[in-house]
């Protein structure tokens, strides 16, 4: 499937150990910035009951969902620990602080 890159802003727009959300035709996407200044993008939708992951606490390379404390890996989108579930990860790139995410062009055409 074709990928389309979209600029979403600068890395400083996201607090360290924090997240922002981006509205897209694919739904809300969470963009996370870790203490080590890495960035990740995953769907803003907890595999448990759909909690908004961007509202959780970011620690290491994971986020804890604000609704029932599932811990989701930002790298793989998988629930860690005893819970099972996965959210979709979204390709993201950081070019000198400018962030872009890749969306599926098929969906865009449909919009």
């Amino acid at each position: 499937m074709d990928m389309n890159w979209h600029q979403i802003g600068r890395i400083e727009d996201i607090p360290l150990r924090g997240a922002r959300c981006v509205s897209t035709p694919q739904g809300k996407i969470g963009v996370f910035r870790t203490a080590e200044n890495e960035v990740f993008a995953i769907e803003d939708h907890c595999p448990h009951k759909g909690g908004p992951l961007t509202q959780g606490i970011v620690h290491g390379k994971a986020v804890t969902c604000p609704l029932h404390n599932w811990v989701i890996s930002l790298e793989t989108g998988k629930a860690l620990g005893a819970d099972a579930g996965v959210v979709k990860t979204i390709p993201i790139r950081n070019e000198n602080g400018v962030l872009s995410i890749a969306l599926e062009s098929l969906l865009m055409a449909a919009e």
Partner: protein
Amino acid sequence: MTEKLVIIGNGMAPGRMLEHLFEKAPGTYQVTIFNAEPRVNYDRIMLSPVLSGEKDYEEIIIHGDGWYIKHGITLYKGHKIVEIDRTRKTVTSDHGVTESYDRLVIATGSVPFIIPVPGKDLRGVITYRDLDDVQAMLLAAQSREKAVVIGGGLLGLEAAAGLASRGMDVTVLHVMPTLMERQLDPAAGYLLQKAVEERGIKVICKANTKAIVGDGKVEGIELDDGRIIPATLVVMAVGIRPSVGLAKDAGLAINRGIVVDHGMQTSDGSIMALGECAEVDGQVYGLVAPLYEMARVAASHLSGDRSASFVHSDTPTKLKVTGIELFSLGDFTDGDDREEIVLRDASAGIYKRLVLKENRIIGTVLYGETSDGAWFNDLKKKATDISEMRETLIFGQAYQGGSPLDPMAAVAALPDDAEICGCNGVCKGKITSTITAKGLTSLDEVRAHTKASASCGSCTGLVEQLMTLTLGDTYSPAAVQPMCGCTELGHDDVRRLIKAKGLKAIPAVMQELEWKTSCGCAKCRPALNYYLVCDWPDEYADDYQSRFINERVHANIQKDGTYSVVPRMWGGVTNANELRTIADVVDKFEIPLVKVTGGQRIDLLGIEKEDLPAVWADLGQAGFVSGQAYAKGLRTVKTCVGSNWCRFGTQDSTGLGIRIEKFMWGSWTPAKLKLAVSGCPRNCAEATCKDIGVICVDSGFEIHFAGAAGLDIKGTEVLGLVRTEDEALEHIVALTQMYREQARYLERIYKWAKRIGLDEIRRQIMDDADKRKAYYASFVFSQKFAQVDPWSERVSGKDKHEFKPMATVGFSQAAE
């Protein structure tokens, strides 16, 4: 008829003696105590943790004022006895009080030795013996200047570590070649010196003090070799001398100490002596274990049982400096008839040495890893022949019998008569049998009933292991329950260390306390953030990224990701203007649900996050501030209409509730805090299931606390009755502050109270006015930084990023 018992000195030895006496023969004596120190009996051993900030003075009190009242004891605080008249059987204090006695007990302890060098009387030269010395050191430490400690023994090193942790630049001068040479061999002394130096303390051994120099006050120390070491504070910790002057003037037999027989009897049949001032068989003592043995014997004799006889025993020495583990026991000098076993692990900083004579342990030095101390002590005491396990002996108990055992098994394997608590001479069997017989479930109870780990506290770990062994899974030791997977430390340790080490940021806590993860997790970060906010209100910068979403955006997240908003209605009172504003906001933002809460507030549910600042802006126009319905902090003060309206009302409960809420809003607490004030015992505001509640009565205000009406249901406990509204406010605020400072994160007040003990809370808040006022002042101070309305801050732009998406992308050009 009751006899008159007079005691000179109110230290740890006579305190223990009285406990035994009241148990054995209550009511036999009318007791009067004279104490030169102006205070009750406290745990002198724990002065070092007070100096370093790991404990408060209140926590080390052994007998509070109430204890003396309960036992009908007259305690003259700050009265030094200057004369004993043995013919008239009276004692006289320096304030002119004369008291007659039938039996007299001398327990004057020791005085610190002052080396007779020029300048010893300069201002800034102090010793280390009592609370006054600690307070003098704390005052001097505020300057953060240079301090010199003369003496590299137990006391000197504890003083040095305490002063260093208070920010002073400390040098220790020690006359011998290695530190603590009386308890440690040179190898362990070397390791100790390294550890002390790693704490930033300079150590100079073989240092002979020639003079203390300065003009009116200390400016430095001059050594034999001409070196001058600058200092504004000099602590002399070079040893102690039994305090015998008074007994000597009275003509009692004196040697190094006051000479007593095995029944603690002096040369005068009506006078006994015990504690550090007493000498038995030519021996004087400087550790509490033998003094407690004296106390047991003296109490027996006073109660008429003359069979009790003092038995000498070796006491292990431990240093109470956080992070330095050392244990020393018995005799470890070299000798032809002796052999030794040594184990060293340089990388781990471990050194262990056993000295054997005829296949029996006679001395033990452990440095770096001391958990086998109890076992070696037991082998030594019983003179066990160790030839069978000689090869593996030094590896400790866990290695005996093949494969290594876990620490729990090691404790399980100890015999019943193995000594666990050295200070109080409590053996394993006593602890386990008391736990079972009395149904004890907490460490504090075990301390209360057996005294194990109640003095210097260094055997706490062992006692907890015994509790786990005895109680199985029903006991989860507080100290062993880590905060979360990121650390081995429990909440209490973390709170203590944050204060003791002056840690003022989350990364500092994680670094210093050796967190196992790089940036914590969703369990520890909010807890640490709270502890830091609470402990350093003026200095700590709140870390929003470590707060749960509700506290970050100041609204309550709902299951669908929308938010609910609760404006504050002081005391649950509102008016037409406020209600109109709320109605307009509901219409304007099409808020789907408006609901009245259990805390007498109005809840607006289903608001989109992006709309929050606009909703708050409109609410703010009517004067609303955040109701903090999301906070681990002060939530609501619920009230009834009280004497203003109700025919039963005794006081203005509404007014008091509003006053409390206006005073306390904005404060962060370990868990949510809900209050209520009812105007009479009919209790329409349901104050008796709240965290803190007030029931107004004709004579004043009955303050309640520790109720619960959530997962658990529990009626409140009574804190006490106060007369005026001002007092009610002061007590409630002080109680809240005590809870803020002590509880674990997310621990509601009723759970904390159960853990700490209701009596302890009443003692600090109701009985101890100074303590109460200090808590009150701390709360008031922190409110200066906390009482900022988070909604209006956000209306004016703070944290904008929280409420807007970062971007909107990917929708087709046309649609955009």
